[in-house]
């Protein structure tokens, strides 16, 4: 749903997990887009996530894992349907990737702290790596892609809507199978490690070029920790505000276990309640060993 004014960055979750029904599981190159009907669930803020578990056979994989639920960013929320972008990296994601229409999905969410609106006038740079593009997609939905949207045409209210901020989308992927995930966002400039599509090399090289051109921007980034660390460093050097959507191994997702911490200037932060979106200025560096898969 495209709204021109971003909502609050933290939407509260109902207490207790909900049993949703999977409506679709679509292949998107190397990824899957899992969709589930969540008619009673609140619309999440961009950058928030949910804890997911299959209703059946969760505790059934290789080595009898997964046991605890897994965290996934909302990639989109449309007409009471939640979309998640999944990459199969282990038993939990594998099990979720297996789900089909009609299967049950436990969801707890929306959780965590989402993206905050850019400072008026600053250009928006969305920087995503791999499956980390997911929260940027829903953020683009919220901010407006900077392109006309078909459903905007049907709007009849005559209130003036603020101009959507100028936006540039920079996405990096491993190879051409992964690049297909970029379809989740509009108007993306691409990089690939193997050069199969777009710039051969890292997405942070594209970011560097952008910032060299003009630092009057707010950066929103999500991806592997090493990429986020590069983004952080690039922005810090240039005094560009950046919001990073971090990952960490999680058990609960709602601040109960203290398991998902990353170091910050003010001590350890729990990614699930203090993040996942964290102001880059709070971090001395991005922890690369917090138990996330990348």
């Amino acid at each position, binding site marked *: 749903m495209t709204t021109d004014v971003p909502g609050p960055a933290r939407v509260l979750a109902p*207490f207790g997990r909900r049993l949703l029904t999977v409506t679709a599981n679509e292949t998107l190159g190397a990824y899957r887009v899992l969709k589930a009907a969540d008619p009673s669930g609140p619309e999440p803020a961009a950058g928030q996530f949910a804890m997911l578990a299959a209703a059946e056979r969760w505790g059934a994989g290789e080595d009898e894992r997964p046991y605890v639920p897994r965290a996934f960013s909302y990639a989109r929320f449309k007409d009471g349907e939640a979309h998640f972008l999944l990459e199969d990296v282990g038993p939990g994601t594998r099990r979720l990737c297996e789900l089909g229409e009609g299967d049950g999905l436990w969801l707890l969410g929306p959780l965590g702290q989402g993206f905050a609106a850019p400072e008026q006038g600053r250009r928006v740079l969305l920087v995503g790596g791999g499956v980390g593009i997911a929260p940027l997609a829903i953020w683009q939905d919220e901010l407006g892609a900077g392109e006309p949207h078909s459903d905007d045409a049907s709007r009849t209210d005559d209130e003036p809507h603020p101009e959507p901020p100028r936006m540039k989308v920079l996405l990096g992927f491993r190879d051409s199978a992964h690049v297909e995930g970029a379809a989740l966002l509009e108007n993306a400039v691409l990089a690939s490690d193997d050069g199969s599509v777009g710039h051969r090399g890292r997405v942070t090289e594209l970011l560097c070029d952008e910032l060299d051109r003009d630092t009057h921007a707010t950066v929103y980034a999500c991806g592997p920790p090493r990429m986020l660390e590069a983004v952080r460093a690039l922005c810090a050097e240039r005094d560009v505000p950046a919001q990073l959507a971090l990952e960490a191994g999680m058990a609960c997702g709602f601040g*109960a276990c203290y398991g998902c911490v990353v170091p910050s200037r003010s001590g350890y932060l729990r990614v699930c309640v203090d993040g996942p979106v964290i102001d880059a200025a709070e971090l001395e560096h991005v922890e690369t060993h917090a138990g996330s898969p990348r």
Partner: protein
Amino acid sequence: MSVEFCGIELAHPVINGSGTFDAIAARRAFGNAIDEEFPFAAFVSKTITLAPRAGNPPPRLWEAQAGLINSIGLPNKGLERYIAEDLPELARLPVPLITNVMGSTAEEIASLLQACDARPEIAAVELNVSCPNVQTGLDIGADPLALERVLRAVRAELHKPLIVKLTPNCADVSACALAAQKGGADAVSLINTLRATALTPADGHKQTLGPADPWLGGGSGGLSGAAIRPVALAQVAAVAKRIAIPVVGMGGIQNALHARQFLGVGARLVAVGTESFRNPSIATRIATELDCVHGPHSLV
């Protein structure tokens, strides 16, 4: 339907395990819903120490077969800030508050108990003598004589119920429970996590033969969840047989059947820990099912 525990009236016999539910963080995530639908009959706070602790470096979690290993390292803001910042928040909860504390000497424990004694928001204190994640030298909870001695030294500081949370990593847990009773405990709770470890997987599922690299930032940790339930049930049964004071049973409880087993071997209350991570409102469901199927818990 309510249950009496050390003179405190509880709405049902299901509470949380210390360190497995943060009511303040839950309010950030769920808003007032958490107060309206609070799942536990009492709230046990995470272990508090005199001085603030940062806890262990990440990663702090490892998922095992039907269990979870944690190496959290007891992060907490320290007694002073707990009292100043957290107590007012926790006092708003609709259930009695049990504050869990840990100290490495009798003096430290005495200070913690004194401070808790002075605060009317706190209904009872749980003393953690068992946390395997922290290097306190020797676990006093594993040595019956040391445990009794420490408790005798500090007991007078607290004019409220004192629950001793035993360590399962000992030779004879019922001897430790008896020592706690002799030392003046009003109840014991068990089990805490079992000492455990996990190694970093090298390139996916291959593990090299070289010296092994521990996964957990803290080096080793504690195992909780379903995997430990048979051990927990044995320890709770052994303890309940040996002592007269009430027992809080926990360790891998996932549903009402499991809760009933712990109550059946003699626990007065049960606590849910890791299962709340999988399903945050599971305690409500357990309490409801215990009640539906079997009526008043005074039967126990």
